[in-house]
């Protein structure tokens, strides 16, 4: 028994029940704790990961629904994403708890839209809550990372 999941380029066989949200499999079974629990109802975005490149809320994604889809988590960015450098340059995080999810949402945006407008960023990021209110730095860091990527 066990279900196979492709996470950050590796196949993991997990024992969890098929209805278990991906979030809890990542965190409790696989020990990948960069993806956070914030609400459990897809309202805060702290649990955002990529499923075949698209940003999804892992708290509302049962592992049975993942199939052969390729999952990328914050760990999968390996600290090398231009967004992560921009986050550090702007000292974006305060408490930091939401930032994995923020970065995963932003990374999915930039992958599809390398030069997003302010409105594009607003639309893509409005599902990710930050109670510390780091929004304007998040916004600025995304714009910076986008221009860095374009120049590169």
């Amino acid at each position, binding site marked *: 028994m066990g279900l196979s999941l492709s996470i950050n380029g590796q196949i993991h066989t997990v024992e969890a029940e098929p209805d278990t949200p991906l979030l*809890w499999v990542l965190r409790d079974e696989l020990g990948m704790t960069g993806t956070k*629990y914030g609400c459990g*109802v897809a309202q805060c975005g702290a649990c955002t990961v990529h499923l075949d490149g698209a940003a999804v809320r892992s708290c509302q994604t049962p592992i049975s629904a993942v199939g052969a889809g390729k999952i990328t988590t914050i760990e999968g960015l390996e600290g090398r994403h231009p967004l992560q450098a921009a986050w550090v340059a702007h000292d974006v995080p305060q*408490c*930091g708890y939401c930032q*994995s999810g923020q970065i995963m949402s932003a990374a999915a945006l930039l992958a599809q839209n390398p030069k997003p407008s302010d409105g594009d960023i607003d639309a893509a990021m409005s599902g990710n*809550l930050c109670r510390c*209110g780091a929004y304007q730095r998040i916004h600025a860091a995304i714009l910076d990372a986008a221009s860095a990527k374009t120049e590169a």
Partner: protein
Amino acid sequence: MRLLSDTALAPNPAGGDDLSATRRGFVIGAVMASGALLVGCSPADIMGAGAPKRDFGAFGPFLKFAPDGQITVMNKHQEMGQGNHVGLLAMVAEELDADWSKVGVEASAADAKVYANSLMGIQGTGGSTAIANSWLQYRKVGAAARAMFVQAAAEAWKAPISEIHVKSGVVSHANGKSATFAELLPAAAKIVPPKDPTLKDPKDFTLIGTDRVKRKDSLAKSTGTARYTQDVRLPNMLTAVVAHSPRFGGKLKSFDATAARKVKGVVDVFAIPTGVAVVADGVYAARKGRDALVLTWDDSAAEARSSAELEATYRKIAAGEITPKDDQWTDFASKGEAKDSFEGPDVLHATYDFPYLAHAPMEPMNCVAQVDGSKCKLTYGAQGHSLDQLSAATVVFALPGSIEIETLFAGGSFGRRSSYDSDYVVEAVHVAKHVGGFRPVKLVWTREDDMGGGHYRPMAHHAVSVRVGKDGYPVAWRHRVVVQSFAKGTMLASMMVKKGVDGTTVEGVEGSPYLAATPVVDAKVYTPKSPITTLWWRSVGATHTAPVMEHTVDQLAHRAGIDPVAYRRELYNRAGAKRHLAVLDLATEKAGWGQPLAEGWTRGCAVHESFGSVVANVCEMKLIDGEPKVRRVVVAVDCGVAVTPDQIAAQMEGGACYGLSAALYGKVEIDKGAPVEKNFDSYRVLRHNEAPKVETHILPSANPPSGVGEPGTPVMMASLPNAILAATGKPVSKFPIVSA
């Protein structure tokens, strides 16, 4: 004999204002809970009783040097986002003349005798005091270590101390000799640290006050590697969730765990004082187990009322129509004699209703506990270290200092992680005590547990009547506040309540320059009771007093036909409120106050002092589809010496978002004693697309640092209604401003 009040309630030695009621609150719990108005005992003595002997090494409890020269500063405070770690590091590194790239931070142990907040007398983070209370202490840590290295070099080089210089971690002499801290470490460690080292003249600062002071945790927090309570994984660890009473004040009557025990992964189910604990091998199994519980509750002592009923009651109390037996009216800032009634055309009447607010930090409450007999270790985002030690100690029958705490990052708090009753911590200890054997148990609160768990910013009602003179300025001010007190009737009461007034219920009305400028004041507070628990919430009393005072003044200005900023200036001049005047001038100048805006946009202004700092806020607002949209906020802050300017800006940005969120949307509605909003689907909070651009301007100051984490919030809650008044001509009387 030394009473607690001698130490804890003394004026701020760092030179700030008197201790605010909020700061006092932290101390009080400690003392009262320990029954400790004890002769000869300081609160730190009590809270630290039973602490293990600690070996701190040559540089004392706050500083460690690795052989390679890497420097670690111990942070006695909780880093929950406010950036205190980098401020504390900057103070040490500045005086030490260290290489900024080689300075790091670690959370200290919990030990009140060593790591007390000097403004509280016990260890804890709150009241925006982390930098203020450490200002001299942490600088002296750096200065003492620097003196040790200088002396070591002087002895080695046989040179006078006055000829030794230190820069960026390198000690040198004019004759060309030089050595790094690492090279001098063995010799320096043998030197007795000076007790009262000389501190730098602030004009010689090269780090404090500069943008070189960047956070040290940004990378970890941008890569998912920063460790929060939620992320703790220990061998053999269990996860617990607890079923709580749906109504505030309800008690468990009975439960049937048959189905819960059958859930795969559930290990045990048992009752604890706050409900029924389900212990499992992971969060999902524990939650499934809890869902399968059959529970009956005894609501005989529970709150049965709803928000509308509570609000109506508060209004009737304020209007003098009823006086329940909960409390009696108490004067708090009255002066002069109110000869005339507050009726007639020269009187402004304004009322305000404020709802319960959840703190809703991104990381819901949680705590990892291990208990074996009276041995107890806690691993979590501790904020009220000493209070939590005391609370845990009462559960396991130990001395407070023996409770070991490993402090992790907190995923936000805004006041929630430190409470007078240590609610979630005590719950974790009860569960771990039942499990026993020092087996780690992670208590996890779901978002619903967290938002439904009370400890809210209390519901409040203000009724204000102001008689104005011929010039349009106040001559008599009547103020009635109805708000729950989290001090009265609890263990906090005997020290936090002065002359019948819990200071946190009125701070901001009390001390207002507007009242100072008014000859006659008749101010009273009434504190109703409810099983709904309340707590300090980012800026505490100011969350309602700032909007009330600022919006009332704006209404007075509008009535008088005077520009609201000019009106404030006159009142500040009358009151001698120079700091208010200075931030008002700075913010309005930078915001372009009085200059035209595009169609539909208006400005609102507010100024408020809290936690020793004065902040002015000017916002630009437009009503779009009936909802206020704020696009630009200009903040001017006087917080004494700006230790970390970019982090001050971050707190002003975040404080504005937090205040805007609450003013626009924040509300926990009570339905027959039970909270309605328990997750972000119904508890609306500010989102990315709704966030304003915040510009921060820091007033140059030579005063010691004062608070920054909280004071940016209340002014935002106050400038917004003023912008709405400017747009519509109609005052705001009910929060949140956007309903449904």
